[in-house]
């Protein structure tokens, strides 16, 4: 596809349930980012991949959050034992260059609601 694709667009999870959010970056993009956007806030950095290597996960809020990109393309963000404070829009972005210093292209996000 032409852009970054995320699925599902909406996810409702019961508290304690595990969820998996998928990101298909633009083909050929080396850098991939996950961001979390709470209501009324700007996106907050979660983690960064350069190809399949997770170079930075300093923004992951707890050890319940886990991200992977095993073949250097599609990425999955997994949240275990979801809590209400995990409710947010999760954004994926990709960029062409290795450093991620060029323009980042964003997907439409997955809106997670934990009830």
């Amino acid at each position, binding site marked *: 596809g032409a852009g970054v694709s995320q699925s599902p667009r909406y996810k409702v999870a019961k508290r304690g349930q595990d969820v998996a959010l998928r990101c298909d970056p633009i083909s050929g993009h080396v850098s991939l*980012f996950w*961001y979390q956007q709470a209501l009324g806030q*700007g996106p*907050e*950095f979660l983690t*960064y991949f*350069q190809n399949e290597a997770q170079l930075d996960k300093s923004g992951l809020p707890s050890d319940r959050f886990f991200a992977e990109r095993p073949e250097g393309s599609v990425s999955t963000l997994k949240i275990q034992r979801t809590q209400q404070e995990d409710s947010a829009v999760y954004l994926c972005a990709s960029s062409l260059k290795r450093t991620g210093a060029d323009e980042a292209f964003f997907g439409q996000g997955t809106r997670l609601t934990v009830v």
Partner: protein
Amino acid sequence: AQSVSQHNHHVILSEAASLELGCNYSYGGTVNLFWYVQYPGQHLQLLLKYFSGDPLVKGIKGFEAEFIKSKFSFNLRKPSVQWSDTAEYFCAVKRRLTGGGNKLTFGTGTQLKVEL
């Protein structure tokens, strides 16, 4: 703490009015600066960016921004807004990550509503 501040959270303008949205950052040293826009129901899109050179940057749809290093500011401007500019606007700073690569640090956003 390092941060990006957007002082106007909600702005309402009439069509043809001039727009200026404030953005201040608290990082020292070299910064790369961005403005992103999110139209209703759509994804974040890049409006313009500053890496180096001319501090007055022109972007898409008639937007421009001026980098003033001494004021740590990167304000967004448009001389005459249109109804279609109704959107949320985010200022962001790109910073290096310790392990390699870069990340964006965003402000809280400004919701702009343009009335006919």
